[in-house]
């Protein structure tokens, strides 16, 4: 297993290089333009000047290699210099700079990470914690009232988009009842009970909206997989051996049912770092999702390239983790 993991990690490097190049190719081919947001009063020659100052005059492969060098060499070196306080070279290192904000992309990402982890990450945890018990009970008591209501809520929760549920919650809790703020304050520092309470209040709505969506999806896979396993021969054998139903379900069936759920969760974790574009927009959480979408709208190639690449690295990593977990959940799965 360890050898397999190491091999996969090594293989991830060329994979990510290829992915990063393809991403760059797509961003380059896309017909959006960094000067599109400027008012029409800015004449074309000035726009051309701006494009040149952003380095767009150079051929595509040069720009790609520049980005790669800045990202893979200069950024880690910069971080190292910051940590140690020692400067390895006299000339300042050129970091990956966003075109829109002219500030280092990595700093922007670090700035956005807390609210994204709090809101999107927490909603994912909440979603999983709701979904797994619901999935299990729905399967064990298939077609009971609990199952029917669970099915209804999760299907409606999944099919109604978050822009609608989010707006509905704002109308209810912010406008009519006035209980919760409709705008997330990223300046808020939790220092005491009052500010903690304020943080909780501003997180409730976005977390619930996203958690409902995530829980709906995961609980469906959980239920389906449990149902599949409940009718297997080994369950009958276990029951025949006189094991208690609870042990049968929670130990044997659950473990064997987790493979699809692990897959879904592993696919979802990188999404946390991708942010939740719509929910972040509605509640103005301004996390990584909002960073990405403003970057895309402004054709901010260095920003979008870096974010997408980090996202790709997480996808590769978590898919590897999922594969390793398969092996633990079902020892019969072998990779060698």
């Amino acid at each position: 297993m360890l050898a397999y993991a190491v091999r996969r990690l090594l293989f991830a490097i060329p994979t990510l290089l290829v992915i990063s190049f393809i991403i760059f190719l797509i961003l380059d081919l896309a017909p959006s333009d960094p000067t599109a947001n400027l008012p029409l009063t800015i004449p074309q020659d000035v726009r051309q000047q701006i494009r040149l100052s952003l380095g767009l005059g150079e051929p595509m492969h040069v720009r790609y290699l520049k980005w790669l060098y800045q990202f893979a060499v200069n950024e880690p070196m910069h971080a190292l210099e910051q940590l140690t306080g020692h400067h390895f070279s006299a000339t300042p290192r050129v970091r990956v700079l966003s075109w829109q904000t002219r500030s280092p992309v990595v700093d922007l990402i670090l700035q956005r990470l807390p609210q994204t982890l709090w809101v999107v990450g927490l909603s994912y945890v909440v979603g999983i914690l709701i979904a797994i018990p619901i999935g299990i009970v729905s399967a064990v008591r298939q077609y009971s009232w609990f199952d029917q209501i669970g099915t209804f809520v999760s299907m409606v929760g999944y099919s109604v988009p978050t822009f609608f549920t989010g707006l509905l919650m704002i109308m209810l809790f912010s406008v009519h009842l006035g209980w919760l703020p409709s705008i997330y304050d990223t300046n808020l520092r939790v220092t005491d009970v009052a500010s903690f309470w304020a943080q909780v209040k501003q997180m409730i709505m976005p977390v619930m909206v996203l958690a409902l969506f995530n829980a709906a999806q995961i609980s469906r896979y959980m239920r389906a997989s449990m149902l599949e396993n409940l009718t297997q021969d080994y369950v009958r054998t276990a029951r025949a051996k006189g094991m208690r139903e609870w042990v049968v379900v929670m130990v044997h069936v659950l473990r064997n049912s987790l493979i699809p759920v692990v897959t879904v969760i592993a696919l979802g974790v990188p999404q946390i770092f991708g942010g939740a574009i719509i929910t972040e927009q509605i509640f103005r959480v301004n996390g990584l999702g909002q960073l990405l979408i403003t970057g895309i709208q402004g054709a901010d190639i260095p920003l979008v390239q870096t974010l997408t690449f980090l996202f790709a690295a997480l996808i590769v990593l978590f898919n590897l983790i999922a594969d390793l977990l398969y092996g633990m959940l079902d020892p019969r799965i072998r990779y060698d």
Partner: protein
Amino acid sequence: MTERAEPAPGTVPGEIETPERGLWNDVWYQFRHHRGAMLGTIVFTLIVLAVILGPVLHPVDPTHIDVKARNALPSLAHPMGTDNLGRDTFAGIIEGGRISLAVGVTAMALALFLGTLVGVLAGYYRRLDGMLMRVTDLFLALPILPLLLVVILLFRDALRAAFGPETGIFLLIVFIIGVTSWMQTARIVRGDVLALKEREFVLAARSVGTPDRRIILRHILPNVLSPIMVSATLGIANAIITESALSFLGLGFPSDFPTWGRLLFDGANFMALSPSRVIWPGLAISLTVLSVNFIGDGLRDALDPRARGR
């Protein structure tokens, strides 16, 4: 129905080898006696009939603007009210249903086909696994919005010239949604297949020299059906919503083509002013997804060899 959790006596995985005719009769019998499945089928059929026959019952042009009847509440002339330009919401729901259902079902089918194909191949054949899963990683990582812009740039005019504006856009949308949403199904199916192919019945089938194709179709596929059915249900909801998201990028149908997702999005800000603008499209999407879900449940139960024959 409710004692479904009880294992059916005397069923062995090999029972799927019963003659073809009997199998489908069995499946149909089982399906017909599944209350949820029948209800789902009826509702789904009703929705399909409504969007097909709707214009006969309610002959109003969904794009006709009547500025005097803006934001009207439900009435006899406008059973679901009107929007802020005075367009009839009911007619919009009917017309939009055609596009949404067509896009939802076709795009879901495409994604499901691609996902299952990649998942089964990657899970079953170890040589293909690494390559196919890296391709999956790549597709998961692609920046969707810029990719869509590229696709539009490269293919819109060609498709428009070949199939006309409407069919061209339809094909483009189905292609875009299908090609960008098969990865989850692929990963899930692969995970299940990895475990399944080491199970006793597969090993047994292989040891008696059953060809791979037959093992996959007869032993593997029926056993990964439940996650596929879940993916199908979620896939329809996804496709309907994604279609509306596309039109906000100028990539979908032109704005005068109503679709359920679009009606819901356009109506969202009018929620307090004319609630019927959001309730009906929301209900239409939810009902469709729910009914497909129940059909999927019934189909899965009916196809499950261990649940059949009771």
